């Protein structure tokens, strides 16, 4: 197991039997992935989110304006210096080549909805995830991206694009 996997231990420990159970961190993840904006025009928020995904090079794969669902995806390189260095060391010492991460498909799933009991506000929840393939063309990672900075960056972009400030909920 490599270091990246160890760091994501919480995710790795998902048991098949617990796949549909709420966990202790479900609510903190919801907070991290959600912001409320004082705006009632949901289609404007959807348009703005689509524009932001395009800014970051995502293709729009799915959109449903009635349900407020947007799915964006992009394929990018996934070569990391640390892995390359590790592979080189192993190749030198043991004379075998180990596969390293090569490509990734990154996805952004955004859901825009009316704030409960507040028709003047709109709630935006975004989830980022990625699939990574290695040089042997095997799927090496399928993970949710849960770094708070990613979400802070995204929501500050939404705020700027809507000329509004976001609120934690």
């Amino acid at each position, binding site marked *: 197991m490599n270091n990246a996997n160890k760091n994501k231990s919480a995710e790795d420990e998902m048991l098949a*039997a617990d796949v549909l159970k709420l966990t202790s961190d479900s609510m903190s993840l919801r907070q991290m992935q959600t912001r409320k904006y004082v705006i009632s025009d949901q289609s404007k928020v959807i348009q703005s989110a689509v524009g932001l995904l395009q800014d970051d090079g995502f293709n729009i794969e799915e959109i449903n304006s009635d349900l407020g669902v947007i799915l964006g995806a992009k394929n990018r390189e996934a070569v990391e210096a640390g892995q390359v260095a590790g592979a080189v060391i192993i190749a030198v010492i043991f004379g075998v080549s180990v596969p390293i991460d090569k490509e990734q498909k990154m996805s952004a799933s955004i859901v825009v909805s009316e704030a409960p009991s507040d028709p003047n506000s709109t709630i935006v929840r975004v989830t980022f995830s990625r699939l990574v393939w290695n040089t042997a063309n095997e799927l090496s990672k399928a993970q949710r991206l849960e770094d708070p900075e990613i979400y802070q960056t995204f929501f500050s972009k939404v705020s700027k694009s809507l000329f509004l400030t976001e609120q934690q909920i």
Partner: protein
Amino acid sequence: MNKFKKVSIAVAILLLLSLQGCVKDSKQALFKTGDASAVELRSFQSRIFDTTEKLKTLKTVIATLQDLGFVIGKADNDVGVVSGSKYANRHSALMTVTVRNKNETQLLVRASVQQHLKAVEDAAIYQDFFIALEKAMFLTAHKVD
């Protein structure tokens, strides 16, 4: 015994062991192969809710799936389908939830999940989902007769 021989024997044993779970024809996977009957499957995958608000129910299903760590991949309110996937390193689960009118006062919600290359046929796992959905809907989920 040299190192190469040992490795070859280990590889051969692993190969033979891996054959244990093999089927004669992998195309057989096209149709259901699990233990539960279609009737049993429908009964633990489905619940009835006393509401006719389909759009609101679909939105609640979406929010519940997000809370459970799923990424929403597809959603269609005409047919009433939401699909998502949940990643936890190399373990990924795929889920589809459908919402349709049961009668003039009720909706039927059906969920189906697959993980580890198998359809989930464990009633308790679906029960977990409906418990979470009930709370989010502020409604009781009735079992299908």
